[in-house]
């Protein structure tokens, strides 16, 4: 069976760039990950599954992935609206707002964590008010989700913004000249064309949220079974010198993340095909 790896191309550098990419990915990504898998294999099959099927671990998985999905979904909605606002509406001070969007990127996660915890704690500025109307944020799953929304916000905005800027205004004019209302233009023309960048932003925000540690632990309260995220559980195991257990949880987390990101990418390429790219 002949398997042609190389597309015949007049442009040189295929071999070089492929080699470089594989080497880079191997050294930076795959080497440490394989060490992780190697370490966790010390436990053997039954030990591995015993560790990751522990109710406390399962609860942390549910919380981490659930809250990350919700946060990414919230960011899709509001991030798209903010991106729209930044691209389409002219107002003084727009550059300032544009810069503020990047703050969650730039802030050390511990700083955001402490800030959020202080703000939402029962005697914090916002916490007092929310408590008075019966909403508890700090040390609950809601608090974790809010922290994850905070750190994931820039991803959707920064992926949707350039796509919106590039979008031809004539498409909207064409739609309305054909009789479409503003809502129809939005749902049938603009949003379908923005779907690929929206999905990319969703994936990035989700991946970031799953791995988040610093900004969550202060607001989470870290009660086992309730508000304990997986990253924290891994740290706890490490502090108890249970290296194999920690890596086992990490490997499980890695596999779930990989599966979800692959799934999203599949959906991405499907939607890309249907937007005529």
């Amino acid at each position: 069976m002949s398997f042609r790896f190389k597309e015949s191309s007049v442009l040189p550098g295929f071999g070089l760039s492929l080699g470089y990419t594989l080497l880079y990915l191997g050294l930076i990504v795959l080497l440490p990950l394989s060490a992780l898998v190697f370490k966790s294999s010390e436990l053997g099959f039954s030990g591995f599954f015993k560790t990751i099927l522990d109710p406390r671990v399962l609860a942390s998985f549910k919380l981490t992935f659930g809250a990350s999905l919700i946060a990414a979904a919230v960011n899709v909605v509001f991030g798209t609206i903010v991106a729209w606002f930044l691209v389409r509406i002219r107002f003084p001070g727009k550059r300032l707002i544009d810069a503020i969007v990047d703050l969650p990127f730039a802030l050390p996660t511990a700083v955001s964590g402490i800030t959020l915890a202080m703000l939402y704690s029962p005697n914090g500025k916002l916490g007092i008010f929310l408590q008075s109307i019966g909403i508890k944020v700090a040390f609950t799953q809601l608090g974790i989700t809010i922290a994850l929304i905070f750190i994931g916000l820039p991803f959707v905005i920064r992926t949707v913004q350039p796509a919106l800027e590039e979008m031809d205004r004539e498409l909207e004019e064409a739609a309305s000249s054909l009789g479409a209302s503003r809502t129809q233009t939005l749902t049938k023309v603009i949003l379908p064309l923005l779907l690929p960048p929206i999905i990319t932003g969703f994936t990035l925000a989700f991946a970031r949220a799953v791995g988040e540690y610093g900004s969550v632990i202060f607001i989470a309260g870290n009660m086992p079974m309730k508000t304990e995220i997986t990253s924290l559980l891994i740290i706890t195991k490490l502090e108890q010198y249970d290296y194999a257990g920690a890596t086992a949880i990490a490997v499980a987390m890695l596999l779930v993340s990989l599966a979800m990101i692959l799934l999203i990418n599949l959906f991405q390429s499907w939607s890309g095909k249907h937007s005529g790219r």
Partner: protein
Amino acid sequence: MSIILKNISKTFGDFHALKDINIEFQSGELTALLGPSGSGKTTLLRIVAGLEEADRNANADILFDSRTVTSSPVNRRQVGFVFQHYALFRHMTVFENIAFGLRVKPRDERPSKQDIKDKVNELLRLVQMETMAGRYPSQLSGGQRQRIALARALAIEPKVLLLDEPFGALDAQVRAELRRWLRKLHDTLHVTSIFVTHDQEEALEVADRIVVMNCGAIEQIGTPNEVFHRPATEFVMQFLGDVNVFHGRIESDSAIFNEVVPLTKNRENAARLLVRPHDLTIQSTPGDGPALPAKVYRVLTAGPIVKVELIDRHNRLIQVHLSHDGYNQTMVKLHEEVYLVPRESRVYANNDAWTGAYVI
């Protein structure tokens, strides 16, 4: 449907894109808005469509069949608009693109699924693209995309078809073909159409009527024959077809073109003589009327006509177009002294036509 524009002006900041336009587009006619870029032709088209708003003014009005549409938005005007860069929805197939206008109709006006399918297929036949229904716009050539854009605009059975430089992005051959095809299509459908172009050849070939625009104002409205053979202004004469321009001045009762005047001098009595290259005959003797001695500089015989370039005593380059027969009869030779006699010419002094005698 006829369209009447009354007192339409448009300013973008300090720039007057349109200056008090009054015009009537006849029902069922194909009209070309012709002018150089920046002449306001596209702005005018977009105002008719409702994509742009004219300056607010008590006398300004847009009438579709004597009903005012000034305040109705573009999606209520029932106009078909075709863009220079097609503006096809790239996430939809050709079929979906054409069906779009039917699918977004309010529920009670929306045709049934079968009716939509029939209508789209009929339009695909009309634009000769039956086999392409399932393709995406990215899989089509430029000419095909523009035909789909046209089919999409026709799907809503527009009362007016507006085309903004529809062939501007296509290469010359496809352009000529689509041009003929658009004319044929218009002869079948008879929908009132306005198209914008900066290509005089396109306008002359396709349109029933041509509106020549310059600097936000209308220079002339007329049939292709009228604007070409009887240009109302110097601009129209220069814009439609090649022309030789001689700068001179008016002195008492005759126009003088036989000496070179610096352009900055004598502004108030400046005059220009315009002669089309095919209106000049080459003779070996001067004859009775005005004749210009010149030397043959270059002869281009490759092409449907013979182009002769000459240089006169004042170093002005003059173009003469001859038929191959005419060229064979005169047999001009390179560097030969000949006399150029205008059969038809126009003199303009301060933008007005001047009918007195002249010397060249």
